[in-house]
């Protein structure tokens, strides 16, 4: 892997900063930052595949991570038999009818010649399909949601090992990406951006609203975790002896050990992905992708099917984002659709890629670490800054109160400024593409 001494130095510096957080703030915080950085690094890898390899602008990272997160619920949660009995069949039938309607409309579109008749026929098919679907789906949905709504009210999942949800999350995201890419690739490059922006909002709206699917805004909590929880670790003798040797409290040791378990898992996934991505990038396929990115016209003249290649890389990159989304949900042990915000899950990832160095996988990883670290640490820094600014003001004044309470928004400002400065003065990022 072609890392220069400077790149290694940057990574070492980042590691040292994290170690300092562990020493001076708290080890738990350092581990939390590390884990979230690793997940962000995977998301950034996905975005980097799309942007760095192919120049595709995906503004829907949030949607793909959320779809990945949904996979965790559908795979790992136990099924709710009462809900299945109440309306499982109806929901499945309704979904199938919905898909059949769309397929029928497509078939009509293909079979008939253009004209008013075709439009009317398609409209008719859609209208009948809609009525049928809602006739079957509506009552089933209400029935499912009425089953023990305080803790269930949804169909539940397949009760399978949670690790399995990671690849499934990737597949889910890939499926959504395929549909979006099929529609908007091959047109103007900004259309993809707008389409992905739209689909990510819709994914979140579906997650929030369809309570039969994953309880919507009521959240699914207590999902199985791939690593033992701190509470389960505490009684183990080796954890207790470790706590004694380190001189930490038992709960602190347990949570650090648990966090390190996740870090290990995430590192394996990240390492595997980087290895694959680097291999791909330096293969004939990678050269072709870069050729397309750098000059679409001449690549097309060489006989490359640009749109198809774009679709491939878009689906691949989104799948990686979905994988990261699934990992995040399984680390938190809960799916909270209300917490998905585009600024946090889409645009922050973009800042990571640009700051790290678009086109370079290691750059994306480093960017993820640096930006996530700043994201976590800027808020206290902002509060400190605001306290400094307002220290001269009278206590209890409205302005002081307002400034102190708005310190949280310093983050957005800092991130935006970081993005703009990098884009202007160091567009190749911390670790440039080679």
């Amino acid at each position, binding site marked *: 892997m072609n890392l220069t001494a400077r790149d290694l130095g940057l990574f070492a510096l980042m590691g040292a900063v994290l170690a300092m957080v562990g020493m001076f703030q708290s080890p738990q915080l350092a581990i939390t930052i590390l884990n979230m950085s690793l997940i962000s690094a995977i998301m950034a890898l996905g975005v980097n595949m799309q942007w760095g390899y192919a*120049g595709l*602008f995906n*503004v829907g990272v949030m949607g793909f991570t959320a779809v990945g997160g949904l996979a965790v619920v559908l795979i790992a949660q136990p099924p709710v038999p009462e809900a299945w009995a109440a309306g499982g069949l109806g929901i499945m039938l309704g979904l199938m009818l919905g898909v059949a309607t769309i397929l029928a409309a497509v078939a009509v579109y293909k079979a008939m010649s253009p004209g008013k008749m075709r439009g009317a026929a398609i409209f008719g098919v859609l209208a009948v399909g*809609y009525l049928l679907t809602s006739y079957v789906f*509506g009552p089933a949905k209400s029935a499912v949601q009425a089953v023990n709504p305080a803790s269930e009210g949804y169909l539940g999942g397949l009760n399978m090992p949670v690790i399995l949800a990671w690849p499934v999350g990737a597949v889910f995201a890939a499926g959504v990406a395929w549909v979006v890419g099929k*529609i*908007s690739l091959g*047109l*103007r*490059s*900004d*259309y993809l*951006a*707008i*389409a992905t*922006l*739209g*689909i990510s*909002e*819709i994914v979140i*709206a579906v997650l*929030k*609203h369809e309570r039969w699917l994953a309880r919507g805004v009521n959240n699914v909590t207590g999902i199985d975790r791939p690593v033992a929880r701190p509470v389960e670790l505490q009684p183990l003798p080796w954890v207790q002896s470790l706590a004694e040797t380190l001189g930490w409290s038992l709960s602190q040791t347990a949570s650090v050990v648990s966090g390190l378990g996740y870090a290990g898992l995430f590192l394996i996934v990240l390492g595997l992905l980087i290895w694959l991505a680097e291999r791909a990038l330096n293969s004939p396929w990678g050269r072709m992708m870069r050729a397309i990115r750098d000059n679409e016209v001449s690549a097309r003249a060489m006989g490359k099917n640009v749109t198809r290649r774009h679709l491939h890389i878009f689906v691949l990159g989104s799948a990686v984002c979905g994988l990261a989304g699934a990992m995040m949900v399984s680390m938190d042990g809960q799916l909270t659709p209300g917490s998905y915000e*585009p*600024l946090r899950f889409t*645009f922050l990832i*973009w*800042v990571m890629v*640009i700051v790290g160095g678009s086109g370079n996988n290691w750059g994306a990883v480093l960017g993820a670490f640096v930006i996530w670290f700043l994201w976590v640490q800027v808020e206290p820094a902002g509060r400190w800054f605001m306290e400094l600014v307002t220290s001269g003001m009278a206590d209890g004044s409205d302005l002081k109160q*307002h400034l102190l*309470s*708005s310190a949280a*928004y*310093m*983050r*957005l*400002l*800092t*991130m*935006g*400024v970081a*993005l*703009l400065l990098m*884009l*202007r003065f160091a*567009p190749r990022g911390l670790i440039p593409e080679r």
Partner: protein
Amino acid sequence: MEPLNALVSVTNFMLIPAFAYGSQLALGALGITLIYSILRFAHFAHGDTMALGTAAVIGGTFFLQTLGVSIHPLPTALLALPFGMLVLIGYLLITDRLVYRYYRRVKAKPMIFVMASLGVMFVTNGITRLFMGVSETRFEDGERFLFSVRDFREFTGLAEGMALRSSQAITIVTALIVMVVLFWFLNRTRSGKSMRAYSDNEDLALLSGINPERVVIITWAITGMLLVTAGTLYGLDKGFRPFNYFQLLLPMFAAAILGGLGSPVGAIVGAYIVAFAEMGVTYAWRRVFTYLMPEGLEPTSMMQLLPVDYKFAVTFAILVVVLLFRPTGIFKGKVL
């Protein structure tokens, strides 16, 4: 069978709100289309810039209110509009100077511009939230209704009522005035003509002595005015929350693409189509059909095609249909 009541009901709950919403969208979409045809990139900071301009207007409104200035029955915010416009135009010109001008000079790819506008979006969003926080701010004052449900019922004697909120009336009237002025400017004035020439063919425009920087400045200035007007009207109508303004980005883009990017008429038509589709699909038609159907056949369900939470899905569906079947939009925008 009471068709008149049905008509009143649908006007009250769907047509008037959709028309007002469409007018707000139209002003925003016009800005998108203008930036697109002159600066040639998709301006992602549009929604947040709109929020910042509205925040300035709200600041001006509160200041005027403390001075006791009012133009009752109209909302004070209208008086603060010029102040908001000045602030926002200043802000846009500064960002152009600091951010976009460099990329114009090096002739960067359109995607780099979009990326830069993403950065501007972040910063703008942060600034707006610094001033306004994230919670809802209401700044509507003045008369609330042009005529209320009660007035209407007493006047017509119908069972179904209809109200016209003054914010809605102001929105529609203001939007119409702004559109007329804009088209007059684009078609009749020297600056407007140079803008259209520049958007049509950059090189030819340069050869005929049009100063590109001047065109760019005028574009930002017009966009700023459109954004402040649109944002203030939206805020008067529905209250000010920064996140809602960010979310307006999708319908505004959908409107501009539907009409054909680069076509001002298209942006307006597109905006009304998007607004009416959003409202029509998420509106519960039960009441209307209760009046329309013969007795005994009244609908029992809500007759709502999609829940309100999915109004973005409607916008998106429109976008998808346009991209699939007519990527240049209704009015044949410039580029595919």
